[in-house]
């Protein structure tokens, strides 16, 4: 199994006729991701990578039974795009778009939550269940099916974590990137229980960052889980009050520093890994000891 996304998912790309949308569509079809259609207003009747294009999300969902959407639209269209697919009944949305205004992010997050939809992002690198479906900017060949669940705010850092795990023979059940912006839809607290309930996940790797309180809510959940959680928090030496591209990574008030979060997660029972390159080794050592 896997979380949120599987070979049974029915996927749409919003903005499928754009350059990025088209590239994703072709990669998905080439790698066996169950893409069933796309949405571009005014382009109904066309096909991209062999799947049909629809004018509206409602028409696409009605025709294909789609439940997952990868959205790659310009930032000024992001709020509209997310509202449309939420209203059409999507259960999972990856919003890849960066630089979404925070007021738009607050609205789309509130709406998606109200409708029980998992919104990854804004500014999410996506979600992938290796060997089953890929709704992420992560290359299929760089992932490996396995039994570790990853949840991360960062996209690029996730590549490092996977490499580190692969070096010790591990693979991933799913990889969920929450998005680098300060206001995102799905949080650690939403994802952790899904991995805990997934029979094909043995352990969870959580990648966090300074700023915000999302990792504290995660720590509360960690206390309730049966599976080991390995946590790496980036930005341990980040200067205070600087903005690191991800607007979320603002280490402002004292207790939203990486160090404070590492302590909170350790107190809650997580195994804290100090450098990202040590994740695989730490997981291997711990699981060997537990066995």
């Amino acid at each position, binding site marked *: 199994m896997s979380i949120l996304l599987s070979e049974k998912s029915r996927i749409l790309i919003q903005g499928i006729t754009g350059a990025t949308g088209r590239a994703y569509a072709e990669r998905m079809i080439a790698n066996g991701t169950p893409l069933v259609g796309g949405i571009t207003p005014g382009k109904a009747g066309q096909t991209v990578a062999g799947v049909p294009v629809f004018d509206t999300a409602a028409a696409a969902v009605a025709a294909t039974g789609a439940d997952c959407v990868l959205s790659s639209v310009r930032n000024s269209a992001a709020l509209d795009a997310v509202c449309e697919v939420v209203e059409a009944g999507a259960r999972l949305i990856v919003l890849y778009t960066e630089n979404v205004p925070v*007021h738009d992010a607050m609205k789309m997050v509130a709406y998606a939550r*109200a409708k029980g939809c998992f919104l990854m992002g804004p500014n999410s690198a996506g979600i992938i269940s290796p060997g089953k479906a890929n709704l992420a900017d992560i290359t299929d060949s760089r992932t490996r099916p396995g039994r570790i669940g990853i949840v991360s705010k960062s996209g690029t850092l996730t590549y490092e974590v996977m490499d580190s795990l692969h070096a010790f023979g591990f693979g991933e059940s799913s990889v969920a990137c929450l998005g*680098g912006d300060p*206001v995102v839809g799905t949080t650690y607290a939403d994802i952790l229980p899904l991995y805990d309930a997934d029979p094909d996940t043995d352990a969870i790797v959580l990648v966090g960052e300074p700023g915000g309180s*999302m990792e504290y809510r995660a720590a509360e959940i960690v206390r309730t889980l049966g599976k080991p959680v390995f946590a790496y928090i980036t930005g*341990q030496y980040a200067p205070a009050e600087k903005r690191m591209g991800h607007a979320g990574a603002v280490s402002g008030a004292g207790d939203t520093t990486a160090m404070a979060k590492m302590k909170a997660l350790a107190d809650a029972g997580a195994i804290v890994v100090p450098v990202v*390159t040590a994740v695989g080794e730490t997981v291997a050592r711990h699981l060997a000891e537990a066995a």
Partner: protein
Amino acid sequence: MIRLLEFEGKELLKKNGFAVPPGALHGVGAPVGAGPWVVKAQVLTGGRGKAGGIRFADTPDQIEAHAAAIAGLTINGLRVQEIYVEQRVEVQREFYLAAMVDRDRGRPVILACAEGGMDIESVPRDKIVECTVDPLVGLRDYTVNAVVRGLGADASLAPALAAAVRRLYATLVAEDAELVEINPLIVDGAGNVVAADAKVILDEDAAFRHRDRKAVPDGTPFEMQARELEVIGIELDGDIAAMMNGAGMTMATLDQITAMGGSVRGLVELHGVMWRGAEHIAKVIDLMRTLKPRVLLFNVYFQFRSLDTIAEGIALAIGQAGGDMPPVVVRMRGVREPEARAILEKVDCFVTDDFATACEKAIALSKAAKEN
């Protein structure tokens, strides 16, 4: 994050229906109206009053004297940018009122306090009323009323204060602001509600809705130039200047170098300019060189875009710099790695595909350079 000076913030409040004291920048025509006036330093920091940045004037001559004194001030390390002269308002009552984006809760929040004019962080938490707004239903009367009760004013002022609260929230949303803080919001001698100060932070990501707005985020010259090249630059005071893709990788590289005993001079996060090509990358590298780092480190991992472009950019920058280049360490992984390696084999740099190895090498080179 675009922080506005007081006078810019007041212009924005006025545009959104708030009353503000009549005023103008010093040097732009005559002082507004009759005295007395207040002469105020315009600078993006608090504590202006204590630092002598706010002075009262009864005559035009006094304005000139105060303006000259204020112009020379440095407050909390920042030079005064402008001087603003406004009519002095008779204060009957002062409140604190602010609306902001609460990034943790993912909601707008309104803060109110019956005592205004002081630093809100020094006010006991139980004296501040805090109300969030659900964006699904917007600001509703029950919240407006709760905020107005929090201001603790007479019932006769309630309608005017309720109007101010509605206007404040409307301003936050209409202007795509992250913060609109009015401290103090005053009741003047005539009983009018007036915004006597303004602290406003705007969301630069919403620029597409505010085409007339000239985005002026602040920072060091290096950081401003980085922004012009559409990358994010951060200046520190160590030895190694590093360029990464992704904010997580940027922070992780800083962590790794620091944890391994090295130090960082500057960070550049280049996600988003890859499509611009090698020449643009070379320009960014030239900017990094202005920091005079002892070593240049590149740590990139591309799963979607290919590595050729960055390799070409590095090769180009090394070629153009001639001998004036610090040692270069490149860690590359991802799409078209062999092709990128082939490009870098032709220039003088250390290439690896391992994160830790790259940091180790960069630290060793920076220590060697320091010893020379």
